[in-house]
């Protein structure tokens, strides 16, 4: 349960990093070009808008992933048997273990009977 939630968090971080790198590459491509101040401002606004758009996308992705993660978390909490089933031995193995334990119990029972065995005489 903990492992799956951690991986979902990692996946969220990966997505935000991608958006950050795309933002940086946009800024670099703008730097060497000499442009007038007014154009620079509009460009900056555009970049800022583009950045905001990118952030919104990231937020949307983040929210989507978070919803998915929450849904996964909820399903894990609500159906504990489904996760424990993975640790359960197969029915074949279970039968083997049960028959092995039965033999063990018989021997144990016999020793207990020898220890505590009583007879009733009328």
């Amino acid at each position: 349960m903990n492992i799956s939630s951690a991986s979902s968090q990692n996946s969220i971080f990966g997505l935000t990093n991608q958006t950050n790198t795309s933002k940086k590459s946009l800024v670099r491509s703008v730097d060497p070009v000499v442009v007038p101040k007014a154009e620079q401002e509009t460009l900056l606004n555009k970049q800022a808008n583009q950045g905001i758009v990118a952030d919104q996308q990231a937020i949307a992705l983040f929210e989507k992933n978070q919803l998915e993660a929450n849904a996964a978390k909820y399903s894990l909490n609500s159906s504990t048997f489904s996760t424990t089933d993975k640790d359960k031995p197969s029915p074949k193995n279970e039968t083997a273990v049960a028959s092995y334990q039965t033999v063990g119990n018989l021997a144990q029972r016999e020793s207990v009977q020898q220890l505590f065995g009583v007879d009733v005489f009328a």
Partner: protein
Amino acid sequence: MSNISSEQTSSFWQKYHFFILLIAAVVIKQVPLVSIPFNWLESYFHEISHGLAAIVTGGSVLRIQLFANGAGLCTTQGGMGFVISFAGYAGATLWGWGIYKLASSHQRIAQIFSVLLFLLIVSSIIFWGRDLLTWFILAVLAVLFLLTIKLKKLHYLQRLMQLFGLLILLNSLSSPSYLLDGRNLGDGAALATMTFIPEIVWVLIWFSLALVALYSLYKSAKKHN
């Protein structure tokens, strides 16, 4: 004249005391309420025989239960199953025979034996009785023996002990026949399971033992005359 009649009575008693006591025992066994404590007496000696056999063969007694109708149970642990099963009826016969024999031997011996039996019953209450009914029945039996000890005239104690012995013997003569009820329960059935010898054979053995014991007492009473 009166001396002659008392001598005659005394000689009659000495001659026939075994038969008088035997008839008294048979009559007591038929009386509904009076016979109850004597049935308990036989039941107790039957169960204590199981218990003693268990102890002698290396086992132990966990519990003795006595019931108002004269039934009883002895719970043991370990010991030899065959000996313990056989000892119930055979032991009761032996107790009846022994009580009569020892009481007949000497008045003082009869008194000492009575004290020993009282102590045995008290020990049974302490160590093996686990329920109220068993305690009550054992207490009644203890009082019965206490009364015999308290008797001023040892002659009466002797006769009472002889009567007790005969009552136990009569019970052990008749009680094995109760096993032949087709239910396959009790000591006879247990022995039949262990030995593959039918239950009726064991019943006949116990009956024969009680008969031999009774005959032995008759012979010794005849000898004393």
